């Protein structure tokens, strides 16, 4: 077992401050990267690298480096030719073309492959043999220079070429190339030690066309022409020790802008975009000032470069002294919506310059510190720039996100500690991927990981105060900057690496506080806390009896023990109480300060010292409680479900000044559709001092309440009169004022309100005609001529509003959608969409927001049956050459179509695009969208699910995506969503279903199916009669969907597994087929699944039939599966079992886990099944004339069938 990257860190802890110990037997001090030739036409790169290393052991004879994709011509060590071996196990993860298709197996193999080349474990793809002539030299620990000539031809990852196919020279065409990738991906474009912990100084040289600019890390020393004056060479020096993973490059015909405020900062953009660049970067110096001020530390590099490029891999990528941004972040002064987003991106990248680029990490398990600190200081910047409300709102949003994710998929572990070989305590057994390496992580998990990291940093701040926190950061930075100026020999460079232990140590040094419990809870352990709260007021004792329960058994949760703040707003004021949450105490008595004195007219003091008048008539006469908040400061990563009366939520919404509290009360009020809630929401909507995001969410809540109250609702549709008052002309209330977006708050409200209004429904569940006319009028009278800002986002939201107003079409009989039977309202909507979409071709809007909204709206119309469902339009917009936002919107529609219409053709089209599209981001995004909106899931019968698809996806993740970590993990995610962890259910039983173990005289399940299958007795298998019994023995409620739940640990279960598989072949839904021939099983499954569509039969039926057949017929199914036993070579078994051994522990654990939950899950499944049945039925309800009529009669009117 290779040593994991963490071992040095742990050693380090024991030894104390000695510093970082490299996993490599040498130390890299300096590296030269020289790219002599870049050919845009052929998309190729030629160059060399030279690494200067010092051996740290005397017998160094092999040097392992990272290199992927590069063709290596020649390696020389100190000018002597050296032999080298190149081996990359990640190219193809599972080599043997076995049919098992088991994701569990794949994930283990993939993790093993990644660690086999993991530089943090001292490994690499490229192994160089030190020439024997130099051995003596090495023994003296003298310097070695490794010179490697390499080239890259049409790289699929690491470097991305953008070459528009138009006339002209490459510079005129705007062709450019840039480095990209997820985590340490530098090995994709030059050989290096691709680790964040191996620092060295750099010399970078790039020879490019004279019309181009090469931007890279460090200082541009000089630019020199080549002899023919056609090219020039950019010489960069990076004297601050930097990890190879933080090296980047961007070459293109960039326009150059020197920042007018800071001359050492240079911005680059593609031709013609200079005016936008000026505006976009005009704010950057303020971000610089802010960070330098709070960190009391100068920006560590002597210069900074921002490059804006097309077809970006990610929106923001930070590298040493330069950041690469998507060109789509550029905007002019007329764009409102993009401005804060872009500024956030700039600030984020700059925060990562300090923590992430300058300060690097020791190992992957220390990543959370860097992401945490950079996220945290970015949060401070947000607070300062956008205000406390925005900050708290953001924190709440992030908290909700991480809580939702962890509860859905299981915990996110910030600081995984991997015991060498002790895989039994794998901390992430609930996940379908390994968290040992960044490259095996699901992208979504990594996003959530970053989110959790900064939230935990905030928790630490809560504990030790911000002042200490900043002191810690300053200490880290000043240590690092002292180290960075040292020569290599002083061994100081490891001070530039941050580790979890080092970070915690400086926290305790600086603050003197023990934060170990906090770290244990949130960093060393995964999961969030789930509180349920309720209360009763005891009048006699004047005590609030608060009950707080926790759910710590569901996946993704953990138990919380410790202090918890509760804020109680009473008539006499607001009071904080700190409760101790303990093991067994659920009830907490909180004494109230005030007796109920509602009659005395007195102002009520709030938490912030403000005193307000309140109308207390809604209150409970006996209780002085206005509202109660649990953990108001969000100092626990938790979800709180708290019960309090509707009037308390209303008071909280009206009078609590904290935006988070307001947000929470809005969410809670959805459950109280009363006139009082309506009033509270309307009041908050009108209140201009209120935070605009709260007002925006109040809109949607109001729409929901209005729909619940539809029978008792009086007056005009919700928000209509409000909107009219705020935004329409005084004299003619149906005409909106000409646009003036000077007040951004009201701009956002103006945008949102119609979108929310369109969600209103009348008693027939249709959008009221009045609302539709109102929105159409808004569009009609929209006038932006006098506005300082562009209204493209506003218009896009109006189209969204139109789409929101669409309800499912009522189809009288199963007619084809044509123009003649088009609903007149839909006709109006379609008219607008057509006009907007066509106008976009003539006068396009910024980022084509309107096209995006139109495409979405068209898909909504299709989905609701107003317009024939057809992906052709979307497919044309999804083509390469459209703006990326349009492509994504169109692809989203195709993905949705694939799901709804179960189209195999479109699924193939999408999969093809995943493999061939030139833009990595789009490929990633398609996988992501397919995972989020899958055409089917592992528990679902679908005609799409067939063996060919399994093979295709398997191939995609096994070998098709080796050039892009992110893409491969995306493919794994999709595979997991579609087929689950074990063998996909649509696969036929493998030919070697059972093999005989002659030694033990037992028949066992083929180990290629499930590695740890345990032998069953020969007796049972050879007796076909007992088979029927087994089936009867099985849980009668289980069905094929439960397949993966079948436990492989016991004899019974493994037999059940087999019989289950046979059952699948036995289903009555495929009559007339010869069911017992295993050779035809392939076609059987596929036919079966298509025949079975929508009418799932229940298990008992099959088993009964099976029982009959089993006894009645001579040819028992089991015998057939025994058939290939003779052909099964024993060697296969031996080999397979050996290969599966190392993952055995893991599986064992896993199954125990499963067993425990089995009962629980069954229930769930059951429920789910019902749901899915209902869903399946619904299309019938649409199309069946009988049901359509029936619905009408019942309601006596025009009543649509709603689609859930």
């Amino acid at each position, binding site marked *: 077992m290779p040593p994991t990257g963490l071992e040095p860190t742990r050693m380090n802890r024991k030894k104390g401050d000695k510093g970082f110990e490299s996993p490599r037997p040498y130390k890299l001090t300096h590296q030269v990267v020289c790219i002599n030739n870049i050919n845009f036409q052929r998309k190729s790169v030629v160059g060399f690298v030279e690494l200067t290393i010092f051996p740290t052991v005397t017998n160094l004879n092999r040097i392992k480096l990272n290199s992927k994709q590069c063709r290596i011509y020649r390696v020389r060590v100190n000018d002597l030719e050296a032999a080298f071996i190149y081996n990359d196990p990640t190219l193809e993860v599972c080599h043997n073309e076995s049919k098992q298709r088991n994701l569990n197996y794949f994930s283990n193999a993939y993790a093993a492959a990644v660690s086999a080349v993991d530089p943090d474990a001292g490994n690499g793809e490229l192994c160089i043999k030190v020439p024997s002539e130099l051995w003596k030299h090495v023994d003296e620990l003298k310097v070695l220079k490794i010179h490697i000539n390499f080239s890259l031809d049409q790289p699929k990852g690491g470097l991305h070429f953008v070459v528009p196919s138009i006339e002209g020279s490459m*510079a005129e065409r*705007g062709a450019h190339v840039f480095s990209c990738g997820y985590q340490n991906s530098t090995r994709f474009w030059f050989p290096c030690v691709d680790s964040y912990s191996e620092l060295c100084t750099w010399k970078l040289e790039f020879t490019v066309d004279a*019309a181009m*600019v090469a931007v890279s890390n460090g*200082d*541009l020393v*000089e*630019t*020199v*022409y*080549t*002899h023919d004056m056609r090219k020039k060479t950019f010489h960069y020096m990076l004297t601050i020790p930097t990890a190879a993973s933080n090296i980047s490059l961007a070459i293109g*015909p*960039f*326009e*150059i*802008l020197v920042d007018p405020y800071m*001359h*050492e900062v240079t911005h680059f953009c*593609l*031709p*013609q*975009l200079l005016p936008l660049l*000026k505006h976009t970067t005009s704010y950057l110096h303020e971000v610089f000032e802010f960070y330098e001020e709070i960190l009391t530390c100068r920006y560590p590099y002597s210069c900074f470069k921002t490059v804006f490029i*097309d077809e970006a891999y990610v929106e923001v990528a930070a590298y040493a002294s330069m950041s690469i941004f998507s*060109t*789509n972040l*550029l*905007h002019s*002064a*007329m764009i409102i919506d993009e401005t804060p987003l872009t500024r956030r991106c700039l600030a984020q990248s700059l925060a990562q310059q300090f923590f992430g680029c300058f300060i690097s990490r020791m190992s992957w398990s220390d990543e959370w510190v860097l992401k945490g600190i950079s996220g945290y200081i970015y949060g401070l910047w947000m607070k300062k720039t956008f205000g406390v409300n925005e900050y708290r709102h953001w924190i709440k949003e992030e908290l909700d996100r991480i809580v939702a994710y962890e509860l859905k998929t299981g915990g996110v572990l910030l600081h995984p500690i991997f015991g060498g070989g002790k895989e039994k305590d794998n901390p992430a057994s609930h996940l379908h991927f390994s968290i040992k390496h960044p490259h095996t992580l699901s992208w979504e998990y990594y996003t959530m990981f970053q989110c959790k990291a900064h939230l935990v940093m905030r928790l630490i701040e809560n504990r030790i105060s911000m002042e200490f926190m900043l002191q810690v950061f300053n200490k880290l930075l000043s240590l690092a900057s002292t180290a960075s100026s040292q020569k290599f020999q002083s061994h100081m460079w490891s001070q530039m690496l941050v580790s979890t232990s080092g970070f915690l140590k400086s926290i305790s040094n600086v603050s003197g506080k023990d934060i170990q419990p906090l770290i244990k809870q949130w960093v060393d352990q995964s999961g969030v806390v789930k509180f349920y709260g309720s209360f009763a007021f005891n009048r006699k004792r004047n005590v609030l009896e608060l009950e707080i329960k926790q759910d710590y058994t569901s996946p993704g949760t953990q138990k919380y023990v410790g202090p918890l703040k509760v804020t109680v707003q009473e008539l006499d004021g607001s009071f904080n109480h700190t409760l101790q949450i303990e093991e067994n105490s659920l009830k907490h008595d909180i004494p109230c300060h005030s007796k109920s004195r509602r009659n005395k007219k007195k102002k009520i003091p709030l938490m912030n010292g403000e005193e307000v008048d309140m109308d207390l008539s809604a209150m409970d006469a006996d209780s002085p409680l206005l509202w109660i908040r649990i953990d108001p400061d969000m100092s626990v990563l938790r979800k709180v479900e708290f019960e309090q009366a509707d009037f308390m939520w209303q008071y909280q919404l009206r009078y609590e000044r904290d935006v988070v509290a307001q947000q929470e009360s809005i969410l809670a009020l959805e459950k109280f559709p009363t006139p009082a809630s309506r009033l509270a929401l309307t009041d908050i909507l009108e209140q201009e001092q209120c935070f605009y995001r709260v007002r925006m969410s109040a809109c949607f809540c109001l729409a929901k309440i209005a729909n619940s109250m539809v029978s008792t609702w009086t007056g005009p549709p919700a928000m209509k009169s409000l909107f009219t008052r705020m935004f329409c002309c005084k004299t*003619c209330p149906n*005409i909106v004022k000409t646009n003036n977006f000077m007040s951004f708050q009201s701009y956002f409200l103006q945008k949102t309100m119609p979108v929310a209004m369109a969600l209103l429904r009348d008693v027939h569940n249709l959008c009221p005609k009045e609302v539709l006319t109102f929105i159409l009028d808004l569009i*009609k009278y929209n*006038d932006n*001529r006098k506005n300082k800002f*562009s209204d493209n986002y506003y218009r896009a939201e109006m189209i969204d509003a139109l789409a929101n107003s669409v309800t499912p079409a009522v189809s009288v009989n199963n007619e084809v959608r*044509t*123009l003649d039977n088009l609903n007149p309202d839909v006709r109006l909507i*379609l008219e607008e969409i*057509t*006009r907007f*979409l*066509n*106008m976009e*071709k*003539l006068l*396009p809007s*910024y980022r*084509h927001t309107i096209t995006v909204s139109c495409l979405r709206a068209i898909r909504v*119309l299709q989905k609701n049956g107003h*317009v*024939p469902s*057809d992906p*052709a*339009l979307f497919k*044309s917009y999804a*083509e390469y*050459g459209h*703006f990326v936002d349009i492509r994504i919107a169109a692809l989203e529609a195709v993905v949705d179509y694939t799901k709804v219409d179960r189209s195999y053709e479109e699924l193939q089209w999408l999969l093809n695009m995943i493999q061939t599209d030139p833009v990595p981001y789009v490929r990633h995004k398609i996988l992501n969208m397919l995972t989020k909106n899958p055409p089917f899931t592992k528990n679902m019968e679908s005609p799409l699910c067939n063996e060919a698809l399994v093979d295709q996806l398997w191939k995609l993740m096994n070998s098709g995506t080796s050039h892009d970590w992110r893409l491969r993990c995306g493919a794994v995610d999709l595979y997991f969503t579609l087929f689950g962890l074990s063998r996909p259910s649509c696969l036929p039983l493998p030919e070697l279903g059972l093999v005989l173990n002659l030694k033990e005289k037992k028949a066992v399940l083929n180990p290629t199916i499930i590695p740890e299958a345990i032998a069953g007795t020969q007796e049972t298998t050879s007796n076909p009669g007992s088979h029927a019994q087994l089936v009867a023995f099985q849980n009668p409620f289980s069905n094929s969907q439960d397949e993966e739940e079948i436990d492989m640990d016991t004899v019974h279960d493994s037999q059940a597994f087999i019989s289950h598989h046979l059952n699948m072949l036995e289903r009555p839904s495929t009559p007339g087929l010869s069911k017992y021939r295993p050779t035809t099983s392939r076609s059987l499954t596929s036919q079966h699944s298509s025949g079975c569509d929508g009418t799932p039969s229940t298990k008992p039926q099959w088993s009964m039939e099976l029982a009959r057949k089993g006894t009645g017929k001579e040819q028992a199914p089991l015998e057939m599966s025994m058939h290939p036993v003779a052909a099964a070579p024993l060697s296969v078994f031996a080999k397979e079992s050996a290969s599966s051994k190392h993952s055995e522990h893991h599986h064992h654990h896993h199954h125990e886990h499963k067993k425990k939950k089995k009962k629980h899950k069954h229930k769930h499944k059951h429920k789910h099944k019902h749901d899915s049945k209902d869903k399946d039925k619904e299309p019938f309800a649409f199309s069946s004339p009988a049901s359509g009529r029936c619905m009408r009669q019942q309601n006596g009117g025009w009543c649509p069938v709603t689609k859930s």
Partner: protein
Amino acid sequence: MVTCAPPPSEASENREERARAPPTPPRDYKSHRAPRSRTLRQGKMADTAAAAGAGGSGTRSGSKQSTNPADNYHLARRRTLQVVVSSLLTEAGFESAEKASVETLTEMLQSYISEIGRSAKSYCEHTARTQPTLSDIVVTLVEMGFNVDTLPAYAKRSQRMVITAPPVTNQPVTPKALTAGQNRPHPPHIPSHFPEFPDPHTYIKTPTYREPVSDYQVLREKAASQRRDVERALTRFMAKTGETQSLFKDDVSTFPLIAARPFTIPYLTALLPSELEMQQMEETDSSEQDEQTDTENLALHISTDDSGAEKENASVLQQAPSLPGSRNGEENVIDNPYLRPVKKPKIRRKKSLS
């Protein structure tokens, strides 16, 4: 049947050729053939003309038959033309002609003259006049393939016959104007023998212009619908002239969508939308101008720098895409490595030294 030998003289041959094939484009024949009623009338006229015949008498009888003055006018014109044709025939040496052939020749002549008139009118209108001038006629004749130079000689030919001007028949009378409105009765103080009031419109004030619309609502309404109409018309036009996509398979025209067309550089249209360009044209952003001066300051440093260091490079420097034109002036020096001049290869320098 016409039994006539072709006249021997050259001149007559020319003329006949002209008469046979007037170089008018075929559409003109069409226009003359057009309305059925007219041919009927022509038929009638032909009858009368035949009655008049070559003899030239019986003019009266023809006019008597018709009652309508307008018809009378046309008849007279026709008759004159017939006389002209007959005299030309005589001039050419024909003794007699069949009625049908005279009729045909008349028709051709009329077509020819009409075409001259029509073309001349077009030419005159083309130059924004209402009255045709001589040059219009000349251009017309040239355009019709007539050699204008031969005209004076032809006019002065010896054997020409002079035809008296046709009698001026009464022009069609314009009918009496309608009386509009009720004439006002006399007020009591005016005796009834005084003349009646004229038509009310002659003295009642009827403003000919509309009040400019100042109502805000109406204005907005109008602006909105105008813009919408223009957009709709424009997009429909674009959709009709180019490739389209449709949401309904059976119907392509009701909701035509202009087909999606991929761009070679998609981000340019997305980030620099033409929509905003139009909006920006109206405004002049002062901040933008400030920034402009900033870069100018920036640029000037480059010029000072390179003039000091390496003059040879100055020309090369201008080629660099990023550097705007330089201008001498202030001394706001920015030291940025990307603005520094590109060095020449070292080896060449050595060569120049040695």
